[in-house]
């Protein structure tokens, strides 16, 4: 992983953690005073290394796990800020990464009933719910968006 890739990764995660959003390639190029093709290439390398998941056409960030750029069925709130997460594992991961109390809101895919998980002082509070993993672990990255 070269130093540009590491710096781009840091800027993306900083964006999510500080502002709840990933900066786009144009902004990153401006911040680093580099041509956009250099940032395009860094994004592709990070994508190939499974450190980012890119949107299929724009090649902007879709996921920087545990964060999603687009709205999903998993909303995480820590304090006054909220993020979208990619799945229930990632939703709990947002609270673990931020290191603050958090609330995960989603709904049962079968009946639609609202489901809520709360983390307080790094402890998951007792709650209703059971998690289903559809895809065996060895095959997760065959189609990470489906997984």
């Amino acid at each position, binding site marked *: *992983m070269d*130093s540009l890739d*590491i710096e781009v*990764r*840091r800027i993306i*995660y*900083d964006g999510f*953690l500080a502002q709840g959003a990933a900066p786009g390639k144009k902004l990153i190029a401006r911040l680093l005073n580099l041509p956009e093709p250099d940032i395009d290439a860094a994004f592709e390398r990070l994508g190939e*290394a*499974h*450190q980012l998941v890119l949107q299929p056409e724009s090649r902007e960030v879709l996921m*920087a*796990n*545990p964060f999603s750029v687009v709205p999903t069925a998993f909303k995480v709130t820590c304090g006054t800020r909220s993020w979208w997460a990619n*799945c*229930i*594992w*990632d939703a*709990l*991961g*947002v*609270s*673990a*990464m931020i*290191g603050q109390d958090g609330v995960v809101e*989603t709904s*049962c*895919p*079968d*009946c639609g*009933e609202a*489901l809520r*998980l709360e*983390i307080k002082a*790094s402890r*998951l509070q007792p*709650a*209703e*719910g*059971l*998690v*289903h*993993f*559809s*895809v*065996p*672990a*060895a095959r997760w990255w065959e189609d990470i968006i489906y*997984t």
Partner: protein
Amino acid sequence: MLLFRSEVHIERWSETWRQPRGSLLSIEQVWGLAQAWYADDRRRPGWRRKTMAEAQEIFTSLGLTSPFWQL
């Protein structure tokens, strides 16, 4: 990786959408996965993805030892 109300709901969803039954985890197990996977700061220059062996060790520590969880 979806959260359901209960196993009954998972069974009904699997049947309705013709999805194979995969692996069922408690929310506590998934919290364990989340902490093990995401507590390390990904902004650190030295951060790297877990190796297969490291990931397998995490799964084993959480009781995830069936073939579904073999990498």
